[in-house]
């Protein structure tokens, strides 16, 4: 276990409550999506119990939207599960990308942390954590718990209140999520100080995503974009150092 709290004033210590605090800027973005998800799930005919279950054990915005749509359309179970596998497979890359920060832990800890991984928690973690910080696991746990509870509450609130709220209210809030991703992108690039490489990766990734996304499917677009973006980054760095 960790040493006593006398050492917790060290600058590089990242604890549970810091994790909770660092989650706050992202809560608004996920509150609005979770809310929308709750509304759609209720409209598709899912019960409150099912909605609660989904937001607890599935915990993935895009997948939940898709599931609601497919359930409403009467799709077979196999199709729904297969589509969701495809939609969420990008978490494999996200998980691999943060794995170096969470090494040499008891396996159960990594299982616990991994189960809570989302685009958002990934983003905040990759921006905030550096290899030399201590207590990263507690921080991540704080982040995860906050994000997840927020999500569950948002889903249920959406399911309950959704039909009464006029649409215009959502317009501004909807933008909380993209704003969050812009913030995360800028912070990442600022922290890495490799603006030229990063810009090329970002542009390449965006272009591939749009190209594949409109031609084939949005999900394939994202995955291909990540893979090609990563390769672009590697190629540019190699070219610059040769």
């Amino acid at each position, binding site marked *: 276990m960790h040493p006593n709290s006398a050492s917790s004033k060290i600058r590089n210590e990242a604890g549970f409550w810091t994790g909770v605090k660092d989650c*706050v*800027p992202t809560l608004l973005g996920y509150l609005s999506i979770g809310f929308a998800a709750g509304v759609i799930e209720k409209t598709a005919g899912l019960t409150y119990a*099912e909605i609660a279950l989904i937001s607890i054990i599935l915990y993935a915005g895009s997948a939940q939207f898709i*599931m609601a749509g497919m*359930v409403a359309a009467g799709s077979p*179970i196999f199709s*729904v*599960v297969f589509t969701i*596998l495809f939609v*969420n497979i*990008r*978490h*494999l*890359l*996200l*998980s*691999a*990308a943060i*794995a*170096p920060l969470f*090494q*040499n832990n008891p*396996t159960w800890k*990594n*299982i616990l942390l*991994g*189960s809570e991984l989302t685009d958002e928690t990934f*983003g905040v973690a990759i*921006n905030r954590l550096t290899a030399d910080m201590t207590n990263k696991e507690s921080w991540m746990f704080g982040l995860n718990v906050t994000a997840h509870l927020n999500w569950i509450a948002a889903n249920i609130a959406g399911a309950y209140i959704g039909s009464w709220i006029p649409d215009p209210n959502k317009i*501004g809030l909807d*933008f*909380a999520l*993209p*704003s*969050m991703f*812009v913030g*995360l*992108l*800028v*912070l990442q690039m600022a922290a*890495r100080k490799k603006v030229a490489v*990063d810009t090329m*990766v970002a542009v390449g*990734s*965006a*272009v591939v*995503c*749009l190209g594949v*996304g*409109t031609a084939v499917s*949005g999900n394939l*677009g*994202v995955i291909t*974009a*990540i893979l*090609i*973006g990563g*390769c672009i*980054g*590697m190629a540019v760095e190699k070219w610059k150092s040769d």
Partner: protein
Amino acid sequence: MILGAALVTWLPRVLPLVLLNRIKLPQWALRFLSHVPVAVFAALLAQDMMTSNGQLVPVLHNEKLLALIPAAVVAVLTRSLLGTVIAGIVSMMAVSAFF
């Protein structure tokens, strides 16, 4: 169905963290992964900004893209995630009111 969906989502999330717990990846893999965050955010942003139901939204008519600019500026100036989110929301409301 819900359990199935949860399982196929849970596995990709957990497996890498578990498998890579004590294994150190080769340098090239680490370098590849170091670019993943930027690539991910850019892709998700592009998808959100530039497409609507699977079709491209032209740049000139794109109010989301417009609203994004102030948010990005705030991000660069303040390096604050919270500030960026608030700026983005306010910006979007302003853009929606004008167009």
